[in-house]
């Protein structure tokens, strides 16, 4: 009964949505409202206004910087939420890696992962630092670091990876994205502008563009580090739970 009802509801919703799609502006047309209203200014003046070559980065960090500040808060909130549900691992509690899986990783896999992880991290640094002039940015780079640690942890275990990135290092960096954002915002206030204005207070006029670019990069680095640490902490919290399940089962 419930199944039939929900199927009926979804079918109705689907028909409604398809009906909307049929009456939406044509895709890819340069005359649609989306392509004519706010965008032209972004595309034409973003470079001189935000001092970033990549317009997307300019939109994310500068024009809509407040959204991004909310977004890094969402990441931090996710970490706090996961830790509230699962609890953080105690300091120094992981004494040694007991490989409980019936299949320890083979030499091939270990060697390959040991070979690849530095390259992955190098790539993530590239992604973070080049977010301002090419596709990429803090979130992407942070996600790549997180991914590399996921690989490393699945192969070498929680003990090895938590020795590489101990809680001492992770805990202070988790909120770095929000803090960096807040500092940059406050810097704009000190300079007499509104919150989140990218400007140095009393820099010489000619120096301002370069400094704004550096601020952008600073925010990217903060987001990258913060995002990566949050991902890794979430991963560790989940793995610890998994190990406890394995113990009780």
């Amino acid at each position: 009964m419930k199944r039939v009802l929900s199927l009926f509801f979804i079918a109705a919703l689907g028909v409604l949505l398809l009906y909307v799609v049929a009456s939406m502006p044509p895709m890819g047309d340069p005359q649609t409202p989306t392509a004519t209203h706010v965008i032209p200014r972004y595309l034409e003046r973003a470079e001189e206004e935000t001092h970033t070559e990549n317009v997307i980065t300019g939109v994310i960090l500068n024009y809509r910087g407040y959204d991004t500040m909310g977004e890094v808060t969402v990441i931090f909130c996710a970490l706090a939420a996961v830790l509230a549900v699962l609890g953080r691992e105690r300091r120094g509690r992981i004494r040694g890696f007991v490989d409980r899986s019936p299949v320890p990783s083979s030499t091939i896999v270990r060697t390959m992962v040991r070979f690849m992880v530095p390259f992955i991290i190098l790539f993530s640094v590239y992604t973070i630092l080049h977010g301002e002039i090419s596709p990429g940015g803090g979130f992407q780079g942070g996600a790549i670091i997180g991914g590399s640690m996921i690989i490393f942890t699945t192969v070498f275990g929680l003990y090895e990876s938590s020795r590489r990135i101990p809680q001492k290092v992770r805990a202070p960096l988790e909120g770095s994205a929000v803090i960096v954002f807040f500092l940059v915002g406050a810097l704009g206030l000190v300079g007499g502008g509104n919150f989140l204005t990218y400007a140095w207070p009393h820099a010489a006029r000619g120096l301002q563009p370069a400094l704004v670019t550096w601020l952008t990069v600073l925010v990217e680095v903060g987001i990258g580090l913060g995002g990566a640490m949050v991902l890794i902490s979430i991963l560790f919290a989940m793995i610890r739970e998994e190990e406890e399940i394995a113990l009780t089962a």
Partner: protein
Amino acid sequence: MSAARDIVAGALCCIGTFFFLVGTTGLLRMPDVFTRLHPSTKCDTLGACSVIVGMAVYSGWSWELCKLVVIACFLLLSSATCGHAIGRSALRRNIPYWRRQGKETGDGNGA
């Protein structure tokens, strides 16, 4: 020259997508882990590498070529390792082989 290059590049990309199609079909149709592993690892190695070689041909001698070669190298290494790891752990965990149901029961022509 340019037309020939486009044709070669397009053909390579088509071959790559063909392997992806076959690999995905195999992944869906095959009955157990080991048989599924066989087509799905082909996706990454043959399929993706053909596409990358096609793109390399298309881009010609440029900075992109360098990046594409690096990507191809990492792809080959990682997908092979991945297939190995999955197969090995499935084997060690004694995941049962698929055997034909019905007439020929028993003797081990599984997998």
